[in-house]
């Protein structure tokens, strides 16, 4: 690496991410960010101060060796950098794209104290893409077969990462997935323009090549219960079924035609490819030249509103009851949404939906909010401003206020302990549930969280399952 002083490094500006033009991309489903070139990546890597105590690592839920991998990038050893990341993160091409870096590693970055932090996420994405394009996915060494069998329920990031570790430890692994496609939220929730499905597919193909058996159309609880899996020879089970139960607002008019949960809207468009209707058979409400309102301020809300814009909506609103500062979505998504012409109606809350005589949505009554005292979450609590209600005319609504837990496993596995919200209770270290040989992790344990936490939980469980299988 060229010898640069700390001062020189600090002088290099944060390298811009090449991206599709805002207007052009709001009409297509192709990825927004195009990724760093080798030159941009090396230049960005030079901004890293190589701190003796790299605090950025404390910000990473799985403690990726950030300092070391960036050093390798600066030296041009991109494949080496990819291997370094993969010691801790199984899905860097995914995480580089969707992690909330600005709240994690990049929030701790020392360079960011005075200026802009090193673009750790973009570098992660760059090396993962570089590896995939130049080497294909690398096949790690597999330990000798142990003869033990593990069933993994759910093929989201948690299930996939657990499968990857367990197959390498020599166990037979079967992943059961309820849907017809693999990848969990990565395929049915997060849109193509943010996370191309080919990237998820490449990860899954590499697990298949290692010998992981995938069974789609298998709703555990219905197709087989967990007890039946164990009677049929599985020595351990990992539950990674995510948080797949959409919350509604529970207000008047919510069952009018044109009101969707974000899960339904995104599933129709992403998984079922309704944006290619009628080439694909599944339809979705035709928003062309219509007005769409998405309720919520997280990543899901941003995904839904930007999707509706791409489907041709004339006006697309985010309606959120707190202010800009509290929007929980990744900063980049908010920024991209604004560039694409999404309008933000902040400090507004829906009272009821209004429909016409045939039951089609025509509007929503909103009430203005102001921020009061901080609530339990530490954020200032939004309170309605009296008599400030007004009606906004809309043709489609998407409710994106979060997901609860799907009750199928709970209803069919009485000896697993759940909390009152339907999340599985586990031992924090081993991810073991109250049922012997059964482990759980990801959103079903934490409630809706992040890809990196789900992945981390999958790996933690894999370690514990490996120990459990060696002892039993």
């Amino acid at each position, binding site marked *: 690496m060229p010898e640069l002083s700390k001062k020189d490094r600090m002088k290099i500006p944060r390298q811009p991410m090449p991206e599709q033009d805002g207007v052009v991309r709001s009409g297509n489903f192709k990825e927004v960010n195009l990724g760093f070139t080798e030159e941009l990546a090396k230049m960005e890597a030079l901004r890293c101060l190589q701190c003796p105590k790299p605090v950025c690592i404390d910000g990473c839920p799985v403690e990726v060796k950030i300092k070391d991998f960036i050093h390798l990038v600066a030296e041009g050893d991109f494949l080496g950098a990819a291997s370094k990341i993969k010691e801790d993160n199984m899905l860097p091409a995914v995480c580089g794209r969707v992690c909330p870096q600005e709240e994690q590693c990049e929030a701790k970055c020392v360079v960011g104290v005075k200026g802009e932090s090193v673009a750790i996420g973009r570098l992660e994405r760059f090396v993962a893409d570089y590896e995939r394009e130049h080497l294909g996915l690398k096949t790690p060494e597999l330990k000798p077969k142990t003869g033990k069998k593990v069933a993994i329920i759910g093929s989201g990031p948690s299930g996939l990462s657990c499968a990857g570790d367990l197959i390498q430890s020599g166990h037979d692994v079967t992943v059961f997935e309820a849907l017809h496609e693999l990848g969990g939220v990565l395929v049915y929730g997060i849109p193509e323009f943010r996370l191309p499905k080919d990237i998820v597919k490449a990860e899954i193909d590499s697990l298949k090549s290692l010998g992981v058996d995938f069974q789609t159309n298998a709703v555990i609880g219905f197709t087989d219960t967990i007890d039946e899996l164990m009677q049929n020879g599985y020595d351990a089970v990992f539950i990674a079924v995510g948080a797949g139960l959409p919350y509604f607002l529970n207000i008047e008019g919510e069952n009018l035609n044109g009101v969707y949960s974000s*899960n339904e809207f995104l599933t129709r468009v992403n998984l079922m490819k309704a944006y290619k209707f009628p080439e694909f058979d*599944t*339809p979705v409400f035709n928003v062309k030249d219509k007005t769409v309102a998405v309720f919520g301020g997280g990543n899901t809300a941003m995904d839904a509103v930007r999707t509706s814009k791409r489907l041709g909506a004339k006006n697309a609103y985010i309606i959120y009851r707190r202010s800009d500062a509290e929007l929980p979505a990744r900063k980049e998504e908010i920024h991209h949404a604004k560039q694409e012409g999404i309008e933000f109606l902040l400090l507004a809350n829906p009272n009821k939906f209004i429909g016409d005589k045939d039951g089609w949505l025509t509007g929503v009554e909103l009430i203005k909010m102001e921020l009061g005292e901080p609530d339990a979450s530490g954020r200032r609590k939004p309170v309605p401003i009296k008599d400030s209600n007004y009606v906004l005319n809309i043709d489609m609504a998407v409710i994106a206020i979060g997901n609860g837990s799907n009750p199928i496993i709970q209803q069919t596995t009485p000896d697993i302990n759940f909390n009152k919200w339907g999340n599985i209770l586990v031992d924090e270290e081993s991810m073991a549930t109250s049922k012997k040989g059964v482990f759980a992790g990801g959103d079903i344990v934490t409630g809706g969280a992040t890809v990196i936490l789900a992945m981390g939980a999958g790996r933690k469980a894999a370690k514990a399952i490996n120990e459990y299988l060696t002892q039993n």
Partner: protein
Amino acid sequence: MYKIVNAEFLAENIKRFVIEAPKIAAKRKAGQFVIIRLNDGGERIPLTIADSETANGTITIIVQGIGKTTKELNSLNTGDFILDVVGPLGKASHIEKFGTAVSIGGGVGTAIAYPTAVALKQAGNHTISIIGGRTRELVILENELKQVCDEVYPTTDDGSYGFHGFVTQKLKQLIDNGTRIDFVLAIGPIPMMKAVAETTRPYGIKTVVSLNPVMVDGTGMCGGCRATVDNKTVFVCVDGPEFDAHLVDFATLERRNRTYKESEQEALHEHLCHFDKAFEQGLKLNN
């Protein structure tokens, strides 16, 4: 891939398929359904499991061709494959010994009611079936039902066969003639289910209907199948599909099922020429 081991038309536009799906065959209970997807790019649609044979590992579905996917499905034949079949989904029918149980099927609803009628008989009920169709050809499964039920009454709207009139008129006749009825199951078009609910309501007869909203995943993940029952929102795929007929908001269900009407017609139109040929071929082969 799931193999179709037998396919035959029961009536114009209504076809019975026996499909290899051993896991589902072994587990399914009356009232449960599967979701199928015919091919890549296909839609996911729910279909009731009409019957199963554990020994052969097969399930039976009976399909009325009303739109793109069902018509395309009905153009398939013995030896063809269905890409995805997932199930058994939904709650099984609540079966107990009520006394006298009447199961009412309208059109393809007869097929959906059939497995539950069988289960009601097995539970020791005196079982009556009323099976309706617009015209003689559309009355299906009469022989199958005669083998299990104590009484079977076909009805036709045009009087070409059996009782001349609607299923509800037959039901009313039974009630008026003093038949003591303890339980009614009604499955068919929404107006029919609503009419049955109104027929039994004054008598306080426990009445159950099986709802047919548009579905996507069928596992409670999307909420697209929501309906209003007892003024509360339910997800039909996991909370149902069977509900107390006297508490269902049928108007909302009917309205929500019209959400994609325009798109559906477009999809159907796109494939019409292709399908017409295949469909006619299917008819020829089976008749």
